[in-house]
C-alpha cells in the first residue's frame, strides 16, 4: 500500500460499546466531555459537542458480567476498578494516559465500590477494603473481611466517609464502618433492613433506598435511621439524585423528596408508558421522561411541565425504545444523553421557550456486537438496465430489435446529456453562491466531477462494481445497511424487544444472515433474511427484508426453537433461495416454500453434518417430503477427551479457477476439490494434541487426519479450494504457528489410470496430501481468505493481530510445496524456498496505522474487478478496505503516469511535425542545388 492510497478507499469506525454509565464532565479549558464506561470494558471520553471519541482505553475482556467498569472521578483523574476487581487504574482526564495502577486484591470479585475525596481514595472489592492517599501507590490501610460480601458502597457527607456492606450470611442487616482521617476503620452500628436484596437497592448522596413490593425503605446512612414509605403500586426500579428518589412502577413514577424537617414523603407522581425512559437532572431540579417521539420535562417544585416533540430525522434509521437517560440543566436548555435498548446513543438539547428537541449527534454502538456480515451488490444502473432490455427479448423480429436498439442508444445519449447539464448547473450554482475567484471555480469543477461517483449520485452500481451495501447483523438486535464507499448508514432495522441471538456450540452467539436474492434480477428487489430467537417463547423468528432500503418484507415466527438452519441450493421461480429451519424434534420449515416442479430440475436432497458431544452424524434431508434420514454415524476417531473447537466447510459459491497445478517436471497435479469436504479441529484434553479431521459429509469417509502435538487455543481455520490453513499456539515452542494442508488427486500419469475423474466416489484412492508448518511471530485473533469473482487472483490469507493490525500473507508464502532446497528448474519457476518463519513486516498491514481492536471476524467479498477483493474487519472497531493480492492487473495502476505519457506523446507529435517541415525544406533545397 502506498502513502497516497491511505484513506482513499478505506474507512474505519471506532466504537466504545454499549454505555453502562455516563457522567458529564469538564476537562480544563477544553469543551465539555462525557465519561463513558461500557459493557465491553471500554472507558472513553466523548466530546460533548461532536460525539467524537476524545480518548478511549480498551481494558481486558471481563470474565464475568458485563455491567461496565466501576469508576469515579475528581478534578484531574478518573479512578476505575479493572482486572475483574483486582486493581485500580488512575487515568488522566485530559488525554487518557495511565497515571497509576494500584493492586487491590488477588481475588476476583464483582462486588466493587470506589470513592475519592480531597486527599484519599477508598476502594472496596470483594472482601478487601483499601484506603490510599492520593498520588501514592502504597495503601494507608487494608482491611480484609473474613466473610464474603454481597453489597458494598461508600457514602460521604462533609468530611465523613462511611462504608456500607452486607455480609453473605448475615440475613437482613447492613454493616456500617466509619473511615477516620488517618484511614482507620471504625465500626458503627448495624442497621436492619427488612427483606434486604442488593439488586433492588439504589445508592445516592447520603441515602440507600431499597424496595420490596410496593414498600420503599430509605436508610439515612449518617443518622443510621430507616424510614418506610408505602406507595400505591409495585416498585420496579429505583433511581434518583441528591435528595430526590424516583420509584418507578408499571404506569407511573413517584417522586420522593427527603428533607431534614419532614423526612421522606411523596411529592409528585409522573405518568410513564412502557416504552419510555426516566431520568433526573444533575441539579435535581426536573425530571425528564423520553419516548421515541417526545421529551417531557416535569418540574419538581412547581406544577408546570412541558413536552417537546421530536422531529423524525431519518426515515430509514429505526431505533428502539430508550433505556436510560443522563441529563443536566444549563442556563437556557436541558442537555440529555439518551441510550436505547439497541445501544443507540444520542445527545439532544431541549429548549423550553420553543418547545423543540434538537438532535446534536448520535452514535450507533451496537455495531460492536456484529456477528454476521454480508456484502450485496447495488442495483443495476439505468444504462445497464437498458442494455439488459436490449438483449433480453430473443424472439422478436429484426425490425423491432433494431427499433429497440435505437431506443436504448437514444436513452443513453439523453442520460449523458442530462448528467452533463446537472454538472454545469452545479458549477454555475456554486459560482453564484460562492463566487470569489478562479480558485473557487476550479474547486467547483473538481467537486462536480467528484460528486458524480460519490454518495450524492444515484444509488446504483458503479462501473467496476466496487461499491456495495454491507449488511451487518448484531447480537444486540439491530441490522445495518452501510455504504461501502464511506461507511455511511443507509438504513437500520431494530428486530424488536424480544430479540435473542441463537446459540452455537463453537462460536457463541449467532444471528445468521442469508442473502436469498441478489440484485442481478433487475426486475426484482434483493431479498435477505435474518434468523434469531424469541426471548419469551424461545421459538425461531425469521425476518426478511430488502437489503437496499431495509424495508421488512415478512416476519414469521416458528412453533419450535431452531436447532440448525441452512440455505438451500435451489431457487424458486422468483429466483429466491429458500432458508430451511430445522428444530430439535426434526421439524422442518422452508421460507419461502418451494413447489415440487421447482425442485424437479435439480437434486432434491441436502446433506448435513450433525455433531453431538460424542458422535458425528451425517444426515440426508429430502426437501420435497421434508424427512430427515441418518446416512452414516461415527466418532471420527475422536475420544471422550477430545473437544471439537472448529468446523469449517466449503463456502457456498466458491470458485476454483484452475483444476490443476503445474509441477516443475511439467506434469499437472490435479486438485482435490470435493465440495462436500468439512474440516473439524479438536483438542485432546489429556495430552494437548490437536487433530484436524477432513470428512466427506455425504459419504462419511475420513479423507485425511492430521495430528499436531502440544497445541492450544486460540485456533483459527480457513478452508478454501483444496487447502486448509490453520493457526494455533504451540505450547512446545511457546509461539504461534501457521499450518497449511493441501489435497491433490495425483499427477496426470496417475490420473490416466483412473476410469472416472470424480472426487465424490468414496472407494477411490486417498488424495495426495502435502502439509507444512510455519512460525508466526504475532498472535492471531481472526483469519480469513480473499475472494474474487472467478478465483483467478492469488489468494491472500488475512490475519488479524491482537495489537490491532491486519496482516496479509500471500498464498505463495503459506504454501505446502515450498521446497527445502531450490534446484535450477525450481528457480526458473520462481518458487520460494522453505524458511521456517513467515516474516511480519509493517508494510504488509492492510490497515497501516488504523488499528482495529479485538477483531472477531473478517468478511471478504468479490468485486466486479477480478484483481480486487473487498474486506471488512469487525470487532471493537470496523475497518473496510480493498485488497489487490496480485496487483491491479486488469486496470491501470494508481501510479500510472498520465502526465509523462502525455508529455512524451505531445513531444513526439510536435517533433514529427517539425521533422516533416524540415524534411520538406531540405528536399526543396536539394532540388534547387
Amino acid at each position, binding site marked *: 500500500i502506498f502513502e497516497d492510497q491511505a484513506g482513499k478507499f478505506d474507512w474505519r469506525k471506532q466504537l466504545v460499546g454499549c454505555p453502562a454509565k455516563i457522567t458529564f464532565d469538564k476537562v480544563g479549558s477544553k469543551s465539555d466531555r462525557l465519561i463513558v464506561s461500557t459493557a465491553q470494558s471500554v472507558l472513553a471520553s466523548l466530546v460533548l459537542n461532536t460525539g467524537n471519541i476524545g480518548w478511549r482505553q480498551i481494558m481486558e475482556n471481563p470474565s464475568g458480567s458485563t455491567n461496565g467498569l466501576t469508576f469515579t472521578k475528581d478534578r484531574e483523574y478518573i479512578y476505575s476498578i479493572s482486572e475483574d476487581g483486582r*486493581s485500580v487504574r488512575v487515568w488522566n482526564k485530559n*488525554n487518557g494516559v495511565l497515571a497509576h495502577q494500584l493492586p487491590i486484591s488477588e481475588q476476583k470479585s464483582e462486588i466493587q465500590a470506589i470513592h475519592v475525596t480531597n486527599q484519599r481514595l477508598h476502594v472496596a472489592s470483594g472482601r478487601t477494603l483499601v484506603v490510599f492517599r492520593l498520588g501514592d501507590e502504597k495503601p494507608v490501610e*487494608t482491611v480484609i473481611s473474613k466473610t464474603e460480601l454481597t453489597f458494598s458502597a461508600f457514602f460521604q457527607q462533609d468530611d465523613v466517609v462511611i462504608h456500607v456492606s452486607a455480609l453473605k450470611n448475615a440475613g437482613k442487616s447492613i454493616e456500617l464502618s466509619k473511615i477516620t482521617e488517618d484511614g482507620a476503620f471504625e465500626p458503627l452500628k448495624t442497621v436492619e433492613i427488612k427483606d434486604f436484596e442488593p439488586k433492588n437497592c439504589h445508592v445516592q448522596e447520603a441515602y440507600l433506598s431499597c424496595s420490596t413490593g410496593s414498600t420503599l425503605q430509605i436508610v439515612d446512612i449518617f443518622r443510621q435511621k430507616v424510614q418506610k414509605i408505602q406507595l400505591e403500586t409495585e416498585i420496579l426500579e429505583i433511581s434518583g439524585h441528591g435528595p430526590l428518589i424516583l420509584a418507578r412502577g408499571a404506569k407511573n413514577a413517584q417522586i420522593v423528596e427527603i428533607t431534614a424537617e419532614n423526612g421522606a414523603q411523596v411529592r409528585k407522581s409522573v405518568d410513564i408508558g412502557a416504552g419510555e425512559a426516566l431520568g433526573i437532572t444533575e441539579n435535581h431540579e426536573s425530571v425528564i421522561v423520553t419516548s421515541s417521539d417526545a421529551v417531557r420535562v416535569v418540574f419538581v417544585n412547581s406544577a408546570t411541565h412541558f413536552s417537546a416533540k421530536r422531529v423524525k430525522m431519518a426515515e430509514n434509521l429505526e431505533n428502539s425504545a430508550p433505556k436510560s437517560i443522563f441529563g443536566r440543566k444549563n442556563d437556557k436548555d436541558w442537555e440529555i444523553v439518551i441510550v436505547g435498548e439497541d445501544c443507540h446513543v444520542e445527545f439532544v438539547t431541549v429548549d423550553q421557550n420553543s418547545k423543540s428537541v434538537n438532535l446534536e449527534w448520535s452514535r450507533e454502538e451496537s455495531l460492536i456486537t456484529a456477528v454476521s456480515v454480508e456484502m450485496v451488490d447495488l442495483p443495476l444502473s439505468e444504462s445497464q438496465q437498458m442494455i439488459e432490455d436490449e438483449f433480453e427479448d430473443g424472439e422478436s423480429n429484426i425490425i423491432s430489435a433494431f427499433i429497440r436498439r435505437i431506443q436504448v442508444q437514444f436513452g443513453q445519449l439523453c442520460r449523458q446529456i442530462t448528467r452533463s447539464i446537472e454538472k454545469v448547473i452545479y458549477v454555475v450554482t456554486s459560482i453564484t453562491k460562492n463566487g470569489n475567484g478562479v480558485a473557487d471555480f476550479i474547486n467547483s469543477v473538481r467537486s462536480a466531477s467528484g460528486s458524480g461517483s460519490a454518495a450524492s449520485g444515484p444509488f446504483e452500481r458503479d462501473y467496476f462494481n466496487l461499491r456495495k451495501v454491507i449488511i451487518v447483523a448484531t447480537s444486540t438486535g439491530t441490522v445495518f445497511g452501510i455504504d461501502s464507499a464511506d461507511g455511511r448508514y443507509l438504513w437500520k432495522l431494530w428486530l424488536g424487544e424480544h430479540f435473542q441471538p441463537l446459540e452455537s456450540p463453537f462460536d457463541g452467539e449467532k444471528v445468521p444472515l442469508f442473502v436469498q436474492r441478489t440484485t442481478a434480477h433487475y426486475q426484482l428487489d434483493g431479498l435477505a433474511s435474518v434468523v434469531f430467537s424469541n426471548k419469551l417463547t424461545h421459538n425461531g423468528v425469521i425476518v426478511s427484508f430488502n437489503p437496499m432500503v431495509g424495508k421488512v418484507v415478512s416476519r414469521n415466527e416458528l412453533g419450535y426453537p431452531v436447532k440448525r438452519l441452512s440455505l438451500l441450493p435451489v431457487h424458486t421461480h422468483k429466483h429466491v433461495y429458500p432458508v430451511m429451519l430445522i428444530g430439535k424434534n426434526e421439524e422442518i420449515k422452508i421460507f419461502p416454500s418451494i413447489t415440487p416442479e421447482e425442485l424437479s430440475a435439480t437434486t432434491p436432497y441436502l446433506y448435513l453434518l450433525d455433531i453431538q458431544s460424542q458422535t458425528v452424524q451425517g444426515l440426508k434431508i429430502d426437501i420435497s417430503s421434508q424427512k430427515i434420514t441418518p446416512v452414516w454415524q461415527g466418532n471420527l476417531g475422536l475420544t471422550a477427551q477430545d473437544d471439537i473447537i472448529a468446523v469449517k466447510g466449503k463456502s457456498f459459491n466458491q470458485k476454483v479457477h484452475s483444476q490443476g497445478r503445474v509441477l516443475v517436471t511439467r506434469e499437472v497435479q490435479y486438485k482435490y476439490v470435493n465440495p462436500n469436504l468439512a474440516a473439524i479441529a479438536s483438542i485432546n484434553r489429556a495430552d494437548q494434541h490437536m487433530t484436524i479431521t477432513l470428512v466427506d459429509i455425504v459419504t462419511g469417509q475420513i479423507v485425511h487426519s492430521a495430528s499436531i502435538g502440544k497445541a492450544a487455543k486460540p485456533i483459527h481455520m480457513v478452508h478454501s479450494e483444496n487447502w486448509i490453513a490453520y493457526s494455533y499456539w504451540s505450547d512446545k515452542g*511457546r*509461539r504461534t504457528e501457521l499450518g497449511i494442508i493441501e489435497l491433490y488427486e495425483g499427477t496426470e500419469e496417475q490420473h490416466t489410470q483412473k476410469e472416472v475423474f470424480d472426487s465424490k466416489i468414496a472407494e477411490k484412492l486417498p488424495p495426495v496430501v502435502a502439509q507444512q508448518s510455519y512460525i508466526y511471530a504475532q498472535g492471531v485473533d481472526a483469519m480469513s481468505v480473499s475472494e474474487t469473482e472467478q478465483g483467478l487472483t492469488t489468494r491472500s490469507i488475512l490475519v488479524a493481530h491482537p495489537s490491532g493490525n491486519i496482516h496479509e500473507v500471500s498464498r505463495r508464502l503459506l504454501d505446502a510445496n515450498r521446497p527445502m532446497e531450490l534446484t535450477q528448474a525450481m528457480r526458473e519457476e520462481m518458487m520460494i524456498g522453505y524458511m521456517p518463519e513467515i516474516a511480519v513486516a509493517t508494510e504488509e498491514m492492510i490497515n497501516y496505522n488504523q488499528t482495529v481492536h479485538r477483531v472477531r471476524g473478517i468478511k471478504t467479498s468479490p468485486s466486479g474487478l477480478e484483481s480486487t477483493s473487498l474486506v471488512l474487519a469487525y470487532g471493537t472497531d470496523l475497518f473496510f478496505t480493498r485488497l489487490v493480492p496480485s496487483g491491479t492487473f486488469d486496470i491501470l495502476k494508481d501510479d500510472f503516469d498520465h502526465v509523462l505519457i502525455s508529455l512524451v506523446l505531445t513531444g513526439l507529435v510536435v517533433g514529427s511535425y517539425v521533422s516533416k517541415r524540415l524534411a520538406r525544406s531540405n528536399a526543396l533545397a536539394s532540388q534547387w542545388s
Partner: protein
Amino acid sequence: TEEVSRTEQTSTLFSVEGEIALPSTRNCAKWSAGARIHLNHGQYMGFVRQDCTFRVDFVPTGTYIVQIENTDFVFEPIRVDITSKGKMRARKLTILQPNNVNTLPYPLRLSARGPARYFRKREEWRITDMLFSPMVLMLVVPLVVMLILPKMTANDPELKKEMENMQMPKVDMPDVGEMMANFFGGSAPAKKKAVTGGSGSGQRRK
C-alpha cells in the same frame, strides 16, 4: 495486617515491570495514551504510565512474550520467565530456537528499534535510471560512437592528414596504395558536381 502478610506469603501472582525508551524527540505522555503492553499476545494486558514505565499485575508462573502495542515504533519483543517463587528472568526472544538463552536485565527496558513504516515507496522516474538501464547502455552508446567519430575526422583536416601520414611508413605497399586510391575515388563525385555547377553559372553570365 496479619491477614495481609499471610496473603502475601501465599501469593502465586506476580508483576512484570519495565520501562520504555523512546527517541529523545518524542514526548512520552503524549505517546503512551495509545500504547498497551501485551503478554502472550493479549493473554495479559497492561498500560503505559505517563513516565513510560509499565507494570502488568497478577501474572502467574510461566514464560511470557512481552510486546508493546502502538502505531509509531517497532519494539523488540522480550521473553520473561517467572519461577514459582517469583524470580524473574528476561531474555531475548528467539522464536526459531526457544531454548536459546540470551539474558537481559530486569526490570525490562525496551528500546524502539525504529519508526514503523507502513507504506511502500512509489517508483519514481529518474534520468539516471533511464541512462544506466541495460537497453540504453547496449544500444545508445555504440550508436553515439559510430556517429560522432566519423564527423570528428571529417571536420579536422590536420587529423586527416596525420592519419594519412601514419599509414605511409608502413612497409606493406599494396595496402597504402589501396587507401590512396580510395581517398581519391571518394572525392571524385564532389569535384564533378562542383564543375557542373561552375559551368552552369558560366552559361548564365554569357
